[in-house]
């Protein structure tokens, strides 16, 4: 069993940004007397405490502007906290941006040496790893070409190859796993896994909640600069989705959809035999009820449609009344329809319901995107949008 020792201590860290609205000498002199007017305080972090143990992978999640990148930069020493302190030990590598130190006019080879040096490798060590780095990047033919002639893919590959050969104890990663093609992303994730196996500590800022539950041992949820939750990734992700949901509902209330003649009045979703808002268990029958009305002279040949998205916005299910062979009578007064989805088996997570009113040509007359949502409880045997109970057997030889 590997013992975990603390490698990062964040003690009561706060960070204030002062947003100034003027920059030039003239403006400052002119506005010297009333400088308060042109300043605005913004607390990106408020009294954050955090201890990170060696060999763990921690995900920092939160809505945009919640302070997660600021926290990461504070740990990396790039930003000084306004109050509080950050201590760490061991060799650090920060992957805040791939190829941050690349210079357009230098060749790939020169940039490898420069970038490795920026990340803390000595010349001798770089010599040692050079072939490995070039092999990993897969662009040996272009290594003596200036990087300004590289395609963006080649650029990123080379930068990543350097970064992963730096041998860090603590790796800070900010969103960089989201670049490159699919094969490259897989390569990145594989490398992260082998880093984990080697007992390195990884702090990850990401918007991909799937990555958090897949890669991390622990997740920290930040909102408006404070730690809202610190613990098991799937719980953090669930809390995070609730925050996003609240925000979305608030926003939706502010800008009500423009009402045309036909409209969807309301939509509910629940599992048969359960209350609205209760988690949906695999095997339940899901009941979606929608009410429509039309203010004008009425609508012939209309259809009701529903679509279910997962949190990544991928469609996991969709159907319409027309598909089911129904021709609905003229819509005028309020009319309610229900879809019952038999024996649904959704995987863990939150799902969103989109309701649509369409005419016979399939034109959308009124949409209510993400009008309702439901949760499927955590299932620890598998991940993904589909629920199925896995069994495993070792057949030997």
């Amino acid at each position: 069993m590997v013992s975990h020792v603390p490698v990062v201590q964040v003690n009561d860290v706060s960070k204030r940004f002062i947003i100034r609205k003027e920059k030039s000498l003239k403006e400052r002199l002119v506005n010297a007397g009333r400088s308060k007017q042109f300043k605005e305080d913004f607390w990106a972090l408020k009294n954050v405490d955090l201890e990170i143990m060696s060999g763990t992978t921690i995900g920092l999640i939160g809505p945009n502007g919640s302070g997660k990148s600021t926290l990461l930069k504070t740990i990396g020493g790039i930003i000084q906290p306004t109050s509080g302190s950050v201590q760490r030990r061991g060799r650090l590598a920060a992957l805040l941006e791939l190829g941050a130190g690349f210079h357009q006019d230098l060749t790939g080879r020169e940039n490898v040496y420069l970038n490795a040096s920026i990340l803390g490798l000595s010349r001798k060590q770089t010599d040692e790893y050079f072939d490995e780095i070039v092999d990993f990047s897969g662009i040996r033919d272009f290594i003596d070409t200036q990087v300004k002639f590289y395609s963006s893919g080649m650029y990123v590959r080379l930068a990543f190859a350097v970064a992963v050969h730096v041998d860090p104890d603590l790796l800070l990663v900010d969103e960089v796993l989201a670049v490159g093609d699919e094969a490259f992303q897989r390569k990145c994730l594989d490398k992260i896994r082998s880093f984990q196996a080697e007992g390195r500590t990884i702090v990850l800022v990401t918007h991909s909640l799937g990555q958090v539950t897949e890669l991390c041992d622990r997740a920290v949820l930040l909102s408006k600069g404070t730690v809202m939750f610190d613990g098991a990734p799937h719980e953090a992700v669930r809390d995070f989705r609730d925050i996003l949901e609240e925000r979305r509902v608030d926003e939706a209330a502010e800008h009500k959809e423009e009402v045309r003649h036909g409209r969807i009045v309301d939509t509910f979703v629940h599992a048969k035999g359960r209350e609205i808002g209760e988690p949906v268990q695999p095997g339940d029958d899901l009941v979606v009820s929608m009410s429509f009305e039309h203010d004008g002279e009425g609508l012939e040949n209309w259809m009701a449609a529903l679509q279910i998205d997962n949190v990544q916005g991928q469609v996991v299910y969709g159907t319409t009344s027309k598909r089911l062979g129904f021709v609905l009578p003229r819509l005028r007064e309020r009319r309610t329809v229900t879809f019952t989805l038999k024996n649904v088996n959704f995987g863990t997570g939150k799902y969103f319901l989109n309701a649509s009113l369409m005419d016979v040509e399939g034109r959308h007359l009124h949409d209510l995107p993400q009008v309702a949502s439901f949760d499927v409880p955590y299932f620890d045997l598998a991940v993904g949008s589909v629920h199925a109970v896995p069994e495993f057997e070792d057949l030997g030889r």
Partner: protein
Amino acid sequence: MAGLDESPTERSTRLLNEPWQHAGAVGGGVTGTIESVKEIWAHRQLLGLLTKRELKSRYKDSAGGFLWSLAKPLTQLFIYYLVIGQFLGAARNIENFAVYIFAGLTVYTLFSEIVGSGTGSIIANSGLVKKVYLPREIFPLAAVGSALFNFLVQFVILIVAALVIGTLSFGPQLLFGVASLVLILIWGTAVGILLAALNVYLRDIQYLVEVGLLLFMWASPILYSWQQAADVLPAWLLEVYVNSPITLSVLGFQEAFWSEASNGVPLPHLALRMLVAGVIGIIALIFAQRVFSRLQGDFAQEL
């Protein structure tokens, strides 16, 4: 160092025994300066690479390469020699006028390059400053490095010219050359570091610097002799003028490579003045580094 094949247990044991360190720049006081110097020393290879990068990228893709770095000073030399020396007659009072100008120009170009490119260095490297933690002094220092390289090229020409014209002789006066170089490096670095940090907050600095460098070139005895200024300036202003570190370095260079064979009138107590300017320069350098280190905490968010 820790190998790539270290086991997780070995890693955590090693980490347990490593001391805690503060993330980011080190604290205040003189100990802070010492810590900063240590940190920069640890990054000396990077400093070399950054210097090289600066030089390479400056003359990228040009057939003439670094020879172009000579074009400007040689043209300056030619113009000043012809216009100021011959047309305006300054050469009548100063023997070997070409060497005289070039000695001053060489040392002043070093200063102006250090300060000029040092001031913009943090902004020019904003990509790195925002994304990676490095001791940020490295960027103005890399500007010093590349300026030194250009200086060396010019210096070689100066030596050759002094040999050919016959103003160079081996003797203790050459020490003035070394002292001048040290003095100008100390002051150039101090000013460069300070302005680099201030320029992040107030971009007007870089334009002020351009004007200031032009002013200082004429406020030092490069194209005329210091006695000519002494005839005109009131006594207090003359003291300020001759004790400016730039004037002292220029005079020191002229003393070393021109004076001996050209009947130059040395400034009284030149060596002592240079020593005093050097000591004050070191204090200024430490002060500049302290200011820099205080300001650098917010670089990442100001850029």
